[in-house]
């Protein structure tokens, strides 16, 4: 049942307990306790909102940064990953396979503030060897949601 709940709220965090209960034919208290358990176990880590910031006047700049690091003896990549994660500007940190080590997502007020952060904070960390910054120009799909969906035309008459 937990997996079914997760599938439902993964795509709609606003789904009410009463609706989940009806959809899964399970009583509300079981749903509530299952969710509480998954929150406590760190399975459910938070509830975010998918926002198309392009539609808001407020300026927002996002970048994906490739980071190459020297892993530390005995601790591998974990220590440096944790340090990078501490910065509030950092949205996500992934250790990845391929030509570099971390993919770091950064959010800032402007291109300038994002570059500033990379130069001043990220690139200067001891174990960081090099960085490459890619600014996001336009988001088409985020968290499984197509941001600018094609509007559906009202359908013509069909009898079935």
């Amino acid at each position, binding site marked *: 049942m937990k997996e079914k709940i997760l*599938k439902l709220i993964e795509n709609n965090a606003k789904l009410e307990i009463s*609706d989940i209960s*009806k*959809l*899964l*034919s399970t009583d509300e208290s079981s749903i509530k306790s299952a969710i509480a358990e998954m929150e406590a176990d760190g399975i459910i880590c938070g509830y975010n909102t998918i926002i198309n910031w392009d539609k808001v006047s407020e300026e927002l700049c996002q970048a994906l940064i490739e980071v190459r690091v020297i892993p530390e003896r005995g601790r591998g990549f974990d220590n440096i990953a944790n340090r990078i994660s501490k910065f509030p500007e950092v949205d996500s940190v992934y250790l990845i396979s391929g030509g570099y080590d971390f993919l770091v997502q950064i959010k800032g007020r402007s291109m300038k503030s994002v570059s500033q952060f990379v130069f001043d904070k990220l690139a200067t960390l001891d174990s960081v060897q090099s960085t490459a910054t890619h600014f996001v120009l336009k988001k088409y799909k985020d968290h499984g949601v197509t941001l600018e969906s094609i509007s559906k035309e009202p359908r013509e*008459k*069909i*009898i*079935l």
Partner: protein
Amino acid sequence: MRDFISDKLKTIKPSGIRKFFDIARSIPDCISLGVGEPDFDTPWHIAEEGIYAIESGKTFYSSNQGLLELREEISKWNKRKYNLSYSKDEIVVTTGASEAIDIALRALINPNDEVIILEPAYVSYAPLVSLAGGIPVIISLKQENEFKLTKEELESHITKNTKIVLMNYPNNPTGAIMTKEDLISISKVIIDHDLLVISDEIYSELTYDIPHTSIGSLPHMKDRTITINGFSKAYSMTGWRLGYLMGPQPLIEEIKKIHQFSIMCASTISQHAGIEALKNGDNDIIHMKEEYSQRRNYLLSELSRLGISSFTPRGAFYIFPNISKYNKSSEDFATSLLNEEHLVVVPGTAFGDSGEGFIRISYAYSLSELKEAIVRLEHYLKNNY
């Protein structure tokens, strides 16, 4: 000027759902639970095969019977899913299951042959039987039998002119299914009376409690069954117009003639997409079925909260609640619901006289639409009863 319309066609009434949708279209904030069509997009890997077919110039007629590769996949798929044994030569690919029903009836009916139709029934069966020159014989199925056909009901409607039993399980509009045991008991009657079954199984993939059984897979039934299926409901491909019929080869050879003369072949582009659906579409079905199943749970729970009794549908994506306690005909109930609350449901009588006292609700709609519909239905009941 002369009246050019054929006398036969003049006896056919337009679909009862039609005037309903005419009104609904004129109301801007209308919520509709009326249309029997999946609300999911065609899975992209399937759609892309269609695009690829166009890009690579596969835009010509296929063989009349349908692409060989598609027929081979249809054959394998039906074996795997329902243990049906039809070879590639016993399959005709059609422009939707609708064409399959039409050409099967036209190929089999002599003037005044009787065709048994189980009501409530999909709107096109009786008109197609009449147009083919047959006589529709209606069996009114009962809610207390879960809208299944019983042996006794069938036997009591058989005459010396009876030729065909037209079945549709999982059923539109009731959501009923027939289990293997139910079908076995019917098949004995069919064999005893030397009848033929046309089984429209377009909703076969959408069963929620037990898997679908296909009547053609039962002993001695293959030779007297035409099985019809398609891609519209299982793969959310309604606009692709792709279906097929399967039957014993001697019948298929004859049915094929009508298909050749009237349609030539189904859309080649759609056929290429269909191959991809059958090969790699199992997960799409699982995902869609899971959602339908949850919406069914949701609606059943909400309807019971509102005090509306409903038989538990086991397949398709319809609920067929009994509204007879509200002292209104199905049509009046649906019309006032539309006028007062701008909510579209289909009156049961659109599916034949035996649908009186029922409405059909489709749950091929998003949860937010279903929620809003329930709010409106509750408001309507509060105001009127």
